[in-house]
């Protein structure tokens, strides 16, 4: 009897962890895409998630768009915002160094947060599940229907990105810029264009995460920093630049937090995951799965 209750609980935590972990994974992928092409850490990545969620609320609840229309509108707007950020913030930098570009992304993060507060105010917003209905009963656990959406869309995004970077010419060109921007120029690839594409893809990816998670977690203007820290942590744990590492580490971090909340206290969940991230940074900075395979040779 006790066993089944416990196993039901474990499945419950596992699913909660996978759901929140999916968002960390998507955020980590966003970090990796922009890092791989530019070498920078985009501190606005968490704000893309916030904007995705809040725009989804605006389109679906206030404008009354049907959900699929709202979803693709959010992606479209964020692709545009990504290009806008590149064009007006990254491109004008006279002497682009890694450090100046990182400073600029911090500024962009602050601006996005400020504009979000101006538009939506400080209160958290709720969004109905993509498909209404009671939680689904799985082996003694009740799983919210939205969780399946989060997991399904995350898996779809990972498959899409794998295809994009391995099979399409523009995806390959972006990877070439990551390997050697000078050599990319020699074959005719425009590095600025690829950086712009990375920002468009990164912001769209963040927004997808925000749009699918908001029905579960709500969303408010200043959530970006914590999401960015967890997503960045996942990217580091997985080995910065590694897509598969980012996904695995994101899910691990989500599950760890969920179990920490369940068995210890929700008050400690952030502390526990940050201790893990710092621990890895100190002892194995190439990431848990880092073999150096993703490093530049």
């Amino acid at each position: 009897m006790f066993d089944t209750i416990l196993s039901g609980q474990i499945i419950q935590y596992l699913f909660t962890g996978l759901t929140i972990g999916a968002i960390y994974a998507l955020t980590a992928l966003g970090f990796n895409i922009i890092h791989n092409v530019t070498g920078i850490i985009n501190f606005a990545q968490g704000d893309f998630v916030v904007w995705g969620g809040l725009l989804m609320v605006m389109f679906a609840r206030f404008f009354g768009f049907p959900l699929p229309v709202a979803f693709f509108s959010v992606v479209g707007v964020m692709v545009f915002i990504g290009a806008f950020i590149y064009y007006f913030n990254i491109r004008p930098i006279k002497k682009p160094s890694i450090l100046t570009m990182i400073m600029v992304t911090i500024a962009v993060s602050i601006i996005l947060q400020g504009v979000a507060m101006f538009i939506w105010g400080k209160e958290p917003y709720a969004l109905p599940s993509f498909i209404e209905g009671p939680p689904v009963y799985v082996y003694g656990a009740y799983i919210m229907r939205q969780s399946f959406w989060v997991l399904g869309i995350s898996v779809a995004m990972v498959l899409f990105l794998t295809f994009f970077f391995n099979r399409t010419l523009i995806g390959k060109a972006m990877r070439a810029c990551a390997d050697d921007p000078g050599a990319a120029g020699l074959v005719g690839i425009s590095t600025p264009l690829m950086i712009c594409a990375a920002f468009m893809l990164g912001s769209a990816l963040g927004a997808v995460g925000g749009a699918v998670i908001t029905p579960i977690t709500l969303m408010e203007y200043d959530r970006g920093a914590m999401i960015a820290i967890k997503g960045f942590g996942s990217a580091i744990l997985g080995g910065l630049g590694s897509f598969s590492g980012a996904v695995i580490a994101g899910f691990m971090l989500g599950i760890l937090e969920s179990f920490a909340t369940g068995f210890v206290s929700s008050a400690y969940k952030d502390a526990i995951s940050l201790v893990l991230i710092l621990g890895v940074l100190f002892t194995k900075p190439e990431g848990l799965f880092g073999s150096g395979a993703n490093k530049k040779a």
Partner: protein
Amino acid sequence: MLAIRNLEVTFGGVRAIRGISLDVAKGQLVSIIGANGAGKSTLMNTVAGLVQPGGGDIMINQDPIGGLPARKVVKKGISLVPEGRRLFVNMSVADNLILGAYTRHGKQKTEAIAETLEMVYELFPRLSERAYQIAGTLSGGEQQMLSIGRALMAKPDLLMLDEPSMGLAPLVIKEIFKTIITLNRAGRTILLVEQNARAALAISDYAYVLETGRIVREGSGEKLLCDPGVVEDFLGGH
């Protein structure tokens, strides 16, 4: 085909190229030799658009290209095989070659690009055996072949090679030189930079000797091979 007039390049006040003029005619194999630090790579990189000139003109088929970024120079028909190969080391051999034809995608039929790929694989059968190997794991010689193959994928009018023999074993160097001759016999215009002066001069129609950013001697390959000054400085003279 390529005409350079009074080219100047400075790095933070230091003049690396001091008024160089040279010509490469269609179908020729022209080489540039010179000691370490003479400015050979700087010259090649400036033509390719990786380095911005401080003055003078660079023309390809009467079309000025001085100051254009590399991605636009390659569209004018000039491909550089850079010093140190500079492959996309985390990508496969096939992807490196596909990206070599980046400027042709969307403009030309895929069959035309596939044809060039076939030609490159025929030239370097080793690459076709290793099409899906990651470029960074190739041997030095194979990497050099891939770098040349990648440049050829753009179907350049002018192929520029910066020290293709660097760091390779004598047997591999022989192979690379043979390839260069084959390409030139097939009508390809080539500008070659080499430390390996004797081998380079022996296959060149014309050659220039570079010293601290200036051309100090020029002439046909045979003439320079017998030039006492060149023999003294570069050919371990007797």
